[in-house]
Every structure is written in C-alpha cells, then in structure tokens.
C-alpha cells in the first residue's frame, strides 16, 4: 500500500519536473549577472578565479550565513551526541598493524600541505577554503582510522574555529568602518595572477579554510567518540 502510494506520488512529481526541465534549453547563456561578473570581476576584485570572487566578494554576506549554518549544525551534533565520554583506559583498543600506522603518519603532513595549498591559492586556481578545509578534515580522518590511540586536542580545534570565524567578521566590520558597507575590499588589489593580490579575498578564504577544517574534524571526532 505504502509503495503503491509512493509510486503514484512519484509519477505526478515526474510529470511536473519533466514539464519544467524540458522547457530549459541546454547549453545556452541564460543570465546577465554571470556575464557581468565575468566581464568586470577581475578589475573589481583582483581575483582571477571568478567563482572565488563571487563566493567571497560579491556574495560574501551569503557565505558568512553559510558558515554560520555549518557552525550551528556542528554545535547541534555535539549537543545531540554529548553524553558522558567513555573512558578509554580499561577497554584496550586493538592496535593497527605497523604498515597501516606508519603509512598514515607518513601521509598526514603531505595531505595537510596539499589542503593548505588549495586554500591559499583559492583566488588563482580552482579550489578555496571549502575544498581545502575538507581535504584537511580527511587528513585527520586518516589519523582517526589508522592510529586510534592518537587524539586531537578538542579545545585547540574549538579555539581555531572560533578565532577564524571572528577574523571573518572583524574583516567585514573594518570594511564597514572604512568605506561604508560590510565586507568592502579595502586592501590594495595588486596585480592579478600573483599570490599577493585581490585584497581581502585570500585572507577570508584562509579563515574559511581553517574554520571548515576544524568543524568537519570536530564532527568526525564527535561521531567517533559517541558510545555505541
């Protein structure tokens, strides 16, 4: 009965979605605002990656909201799962084999380096704070899977997360004080296609990278530490 109802509902939905998707032509230029960003983005923001300039500069306030949603979700996960932490002293964890442990320890700094490269060069090449933060979190995930006896410093992760969120807001507020609106790009824009260019965009993306990395690591940490 339930499956029959679901299939009837899906058929109605399928007709509706197909009618609306069928009217959209594939492969043609559709919006004027994207064209404006492409034509004027490099002069106005100094970043050669237009997606970065849209995420951090044109729609920076939106990104601040998204980061806040991420923060609230991580906080809610901690609140839902937080009971008493189980004590690891009496139940011995089975140690992983030497190959796995040393392989994880060997790969860990390189993955961290790659993640930092991605978010430092976010305004020049594909990548940025969100992707770099995810790569850093996957490095910590590797440590969690390979070397179970290692623990990250939770207070340190929380401090990094709060400080980088604060940095984002403070940079925006300085813009409000200097030029009249939030997240104004007040630093010199420099020459495009060089590392020190695009004003506040690299600084904000580095802050986002640290924040996303710390938050995703905290999510994995909370899930792993929850009792069975």
């Amino acid at each position: 009965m339930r499956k029959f109802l679901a299939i009837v509902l899906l058929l109605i939905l399928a007709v509706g979605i197909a009618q609306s998707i069928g009217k959209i032509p594939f492969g043609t230029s559709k919006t004027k605002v994207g064209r404006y960003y492409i034509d004027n983005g490099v002069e106005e923001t100094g970043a050669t990656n237009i997606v970065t300039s849209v995420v951090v500069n044109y729609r920076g306030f939106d990104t601040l909201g998204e980061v806040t949603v991420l923060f609230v979700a991580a906080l809610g996960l901690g609140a839902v799962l937080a009971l008493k932490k189980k004590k690891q002293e009496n139940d011995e964890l089975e140690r992983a084999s030497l190959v796995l442990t040393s392989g994880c320890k060997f790969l860990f700094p390189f993955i961290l380096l790659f993640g930092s490269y991605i978010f430092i060069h976010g305004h020049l090449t594909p990548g940025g704070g969100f992707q770099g933060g995810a790569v850093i979190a996957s490095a910590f995930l590797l440590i969690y899977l390979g070397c179970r006896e290692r623990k990250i410093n939770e207070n340190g992760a929380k401090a990094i997360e709060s400080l980088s969120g604060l940095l984002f807001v403070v940079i925006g507020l300085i813009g409000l004080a200097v030029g009249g609106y939030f997240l104004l790009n007040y630093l010199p824009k420099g020459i495009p296609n060089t590392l020190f260019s695009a004003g506040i965009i690299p600084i904000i993306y580095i802050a986002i990278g640290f924040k996303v990395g710390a938050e995703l690591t905290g999510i994995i940490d909370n899930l792993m530490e929850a009792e069975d």
Partner: protein
Amino acid sequence: MILVVILIVLMLVAAVAAAIFKDLLSAVIASCIVSLIAAILFYFLQAPDVAMAEASIGAALVTAVFVIALKKSSRYEE
C-alpha cells in the same frame, strides 16, 4: 559524448542499487559511487571548483560519516 552517456547510465544504476540493497554498507558504497561519478560530470561541465568539493566531501567524508554511523547502529535493514 559517448563517455558521458556511459557515466550517466552507471550513475543511475548505482543509485538504483543503493535503493535495492538490504545490506546498508553496500548501499552506502553505492551512494559513494554516485557522488564520485557526479564529481567527474562536474569536471566535464567546466566546474572544477565544484568537482573538487564533491570529490573530497561527497565521496570521502560523507562515506566515512555514514560508515561510522552504521557502526554505532545496526548494519542490516530489517
């Protein structure tokens, strides 16, 4: 073009497999394949930023989170 068609057919097959499997671990791996092929399609659609995000988050972190949650609860669908 033929490569894109093959990839999309594979993606839909993996999604159907995720719906059918009774073993939830297999279903999670099938949804990981969906994410991975979606990342390749993002690259073909000239969106390298999104492809990076989808490959590192959709294929790695989401799968890890699901597997940890399966370990804390039950593996088989009743």
